[in-house]
């Protein structure tokens, strides 16, 4: 699946039937520090990744 990372770079990652949480973890990001957007809607991280899909990770950065 295609993933747009918070730092702006994008990557094609094979989902292999895993949850998006597992895929994010493998990329060295903490899933609780991002929200996942797919087609403009937020989806929970236990959603199974699908290779034909594109998701965007939104970093929850700190700031009052």
């Amino acid at each position, binding site marked *: 699946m295609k993933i747009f990372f918070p730092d702006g770079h994008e990557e094609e990652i094979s989902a292999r039937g895993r949850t998006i949480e597992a895929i994010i973890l493998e990329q060295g990001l*903490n*899933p*609780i*520090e991002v*929200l996942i957007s*797919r*087609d403009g*809607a*937020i*989806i*929970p*991280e*236990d*959603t*199974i*990744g*699908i290779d*034909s*899909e594109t998701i965007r990770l*939104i970093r*929850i*950065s*700190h*700031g*009052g």
Partner: protein
Amino acid sequence: MAGEVRTCSSCAEKAVFVDRESGTHLCSRHLKESVETRVLARILQEGQLPGIIGVAFSGGKDSTALLAALANLKEKIPVRLIALTVDEGINGYREETISHAREVCTILGVEHRIITFSEIYGETLDEIMRTTNRKACTVCGILRRRALEVLAEKEGIRLIATGHNQDDHAQTTLMNALSADIKKVFAGSGHSTRFAHRIKPFAAVSEREASLYAILAGLFNDLPECPYAGDALRGEIRMLLNQFEQEHPGSMRNLAQAEEEIRTRLRDKVEITPLENCRICGWPGSGEICQVCSLIKKNETR
């Protein structure tokens, strides 16, 4: 084909959030409801509410979410809301975030007041930082706190709600515990009737939920980050606790709750040094000269 999204545990809508501890899924409406219920409970704990609640509103996502939640609760909390923004004067950063803050208030129909560091201290944070070697976050924190008090006093506000969430609370607890100043940690500093009372309606709402709330309200903007380096220790602790929360869901909440529990139990048992009125500005503080005046005075001697 879109991957299957789990259904809300309370209705047939698609989930936007999963509670990692309980495995409960929530849709947009139920997530909002869940956040608002916790905010309402916090506020009702206060008992009799004054006619106005000031909301410390930086324009960042936490305070944006808080302002939106309070605005959405206006039937259950029938008070006048006033958003209070402090413009510290940070070039290349505050212009955009202040204009976002203005926009949010217009959308939510909430009154908005802005006070600048220049008005109060005669200098912007950028200018002050040129003549001090203290950390920007420390300086800014001290001056912003006072600025908010000045603005609240001007507006006759006795109760200020701040956007601190459960994660902030947990981080502060650990930072304080590491500093080992138990008295300061759990008893807090002295009180004065001149200060507005402060409440944290998001104390039981995670940072993730607060951000999601702002997004679902359509008020989340990808705003620039503050150019000053943040508190390094807080950054490390934040990363550590997030890792813990990822591996042991519920840790963050437990830590935040433990602090509250200890604080409540220690109340009235630890002697707190009473505040004195500052010889220069008259505001209550610790020592003859308050923190604000010692900061500003140091600048003047240069």
